């Protein structure tokens, strides 16, 4: 219901103002309202029902958000798919979520001919255009009154098991995070947010919060520093949402030396730690405010923020910037290893509670139970609360690699490598990387004569590019404890 409500409100308040802009076209709030109503009717006429899942496979573009909003009106769930996943990875997600339809760019749909669904619609094709313009079909169907607690989306995250988990988010979750963000970060309708993050990722909730304020969201079909800089100039972007590694690339581009970035008021960054050297360079080069975003798909997205007023001067940052304060309506507690509240200043696991939290993992009660402790959702991040109530992250309890803001679980890479007939064992760790923050390094025990190139080629057939090991090193034995657990500290040493 929430997405429909925010769209309706913005249609009333700012009918002629651009809601979304991409490289090809833009749509006003009034236009979005009308097009999504026609799309919802068209989807209904083609058999999509409330509660059905619809997979979306596309680079970021206006039609993706139109599809999300249309499905929300219909009470169907959007299931964004990462377009860089291999066909096997995509098929795995589709088999678990059983989409009634797949909507995507024609070229990407062609790459996944085995994607199971009874209806396929190309976002960039004539059928979608006809649906959005109203082909007369389905208008007799009355759109349902979608309940707040109805599921709205299934967003996928990497998982320790090596199989992506579907995070089921309802309309009330989107609303809770948006209202909390409106109260805490105060986005406004005069803002133009350049969204550099993929809309298939939980980070897309950040853009939803700015839409809730009536701001304009500019989309890019993948991040390129040169096009992002040009988009800031062209649209006079006031805000930009990216991961720190994108910011580094942006500042390295020659175009950054001459681009007019004077419209920028805030750089929103998150999904990976901000390197101190990059923060110092960005502050000096951009001269605008910085806002940190700390989020997790399972708790509804961005639930903590450090605003510009609380960002320390670069020379006052010793190792890491604090993450910030929890947004209005959500609660954070630091729990010790017994599941009890840790004392102020003591390190424990950051846990979250509130109306933004997911309904659960899609059809996976066990995993949902495992991530919940006494009603609190575990983030897997270790940190503490300071005397002023700010959250500081210090480490991760999960065995996780964050590569340019995308989570990669070593288990998934290890399983892919072990599937090679010459590999007897494998262990993967994250190693620091200037450009990506971290990259996976694979230690492999393999038959004599096996080459690293052969294993990398094998991994390329199994894993999306961002999950592939950057390097393979051969060892005689993977160090394990008596219980068989890999001793990764020894490999990182």
């Amino acid at each position, binding site marked *: 219901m929430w997405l429909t409500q925010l769209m309706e409100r913005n249609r009333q308040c700012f009918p002629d103002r651009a809601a979304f802009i991409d490289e090809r076209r833009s749509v006003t709030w009034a236009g979005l309202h009308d097009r999504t109503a026609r799309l919802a009717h068209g989807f209904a006429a083609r058999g999509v029902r409330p509660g059905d899942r619809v997979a979306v496979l596309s680079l970021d573009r206006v039609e993706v958000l139109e599809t999300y909003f249309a499905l929300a009106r219909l009470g169907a769930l959007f299931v964004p798919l990462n377009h860089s996943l291999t066909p096997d990875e995509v098929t795995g997600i589709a088999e678990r979520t059983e989409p009634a339809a797949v909507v995507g760019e024609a070229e990407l749909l062609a790459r996944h001919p085995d994607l199971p669904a009874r209806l396929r619609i190309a976002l960039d094709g004539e059928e979608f255009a006809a649906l959005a313009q109203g082909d007369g079909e389905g208008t007799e169907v009355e759109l349902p009154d979608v309940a707040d607690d109805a599921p709205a989306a299934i967003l996928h995250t990497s998982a320790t098991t090596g199989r992506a988990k579907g995070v089921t988010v309802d309309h009330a979750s989107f609303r809770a995070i948006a209202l909390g963000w409106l109260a805490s970060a105060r986005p406004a309708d005069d803002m133009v947010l350049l969204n550099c993050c993929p809309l298939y990722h939980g980070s897309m909730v950040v853009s939803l919060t700015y839409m809730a304020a009536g701001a304009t969201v500019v989309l890019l079909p993948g991040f390129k520093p040169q*096009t992002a800089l*040009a988009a800031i100039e062209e649209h006079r972007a006031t805000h930009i949402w990216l991961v720190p590694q994108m910011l580094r690339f942006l500042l390295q581009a020659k175009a950054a030396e001459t681009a007019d970035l004077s419209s920028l008021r805030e750089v929103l960054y998150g999904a990976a730690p901000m390197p101190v050297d990059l923060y110092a360079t960005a502050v000096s080069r951009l001269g605008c405010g910085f806002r940190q975003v700390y989020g997790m798909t399972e708790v509804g997205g961005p639930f903590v923020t450090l605003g510009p007023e609380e960002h320390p001067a670069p020379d006052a940052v010793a190792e890491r910037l604090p993450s910030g304060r929890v947004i209005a309506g959500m609660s954070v507690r630091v729990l010790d290893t017994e599941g009890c509240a840790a004392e102020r200043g003591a390190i424990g696991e950051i846990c979250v509670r509130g109306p933004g939290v997911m309904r659960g993992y899609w059809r996976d009660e066990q995993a949902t139970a495992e991530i919940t402790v006494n009603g609190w959702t575990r983030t897997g991040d270790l940190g503490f609360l300071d005397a002023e109530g700010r959250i500081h992250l210090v480490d991760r309890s999960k065995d996780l690699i964050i590569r340019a803001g995308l989570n990669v679980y070593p288990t998934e890479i290890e399983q892919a490598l072990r599937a090679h007939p010459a590999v007897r064992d494998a262990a993967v760790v994250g190693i620091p990387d200037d450009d990506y923050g971290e990259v996976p390094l694979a230690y492999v025990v393999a038959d004599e004569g096996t080459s690293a190139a052969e294993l990398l*080629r094998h991994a390329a057939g199994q894993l999306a590019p961002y999950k592939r090991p950057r390097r393979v090193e051969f060892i005689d034995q993977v160090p394990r404890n008596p219980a068989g657990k890999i001793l990764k500290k020894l490999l990182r040493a």
Partner: protein
Amino acid sequence: MGTVREMLVELTGTPEFAEGVEDNTDLSASGIDSGDLVRLVLLIEQRTGVEVTAEDMEGLITLADYERFVAERTGAAQPGGA
């Protein structure tokens, strides 16, 4: 090996990808990580001193496009050219 292909090998650290890419393959669909393609453009700027604009980016699809772009902007002969 062309200048840009050498840079691609250097960046990916995995010669079998970069060497296996055909001159006329769309790099964004070749299985090379999108971040590595961003780094490739930045490296071209850094090594050649040539600025790559957003407009230029629209015409840079294949390895041959990149090689041609670098050759034209730096005045160097294209690899394999007459």
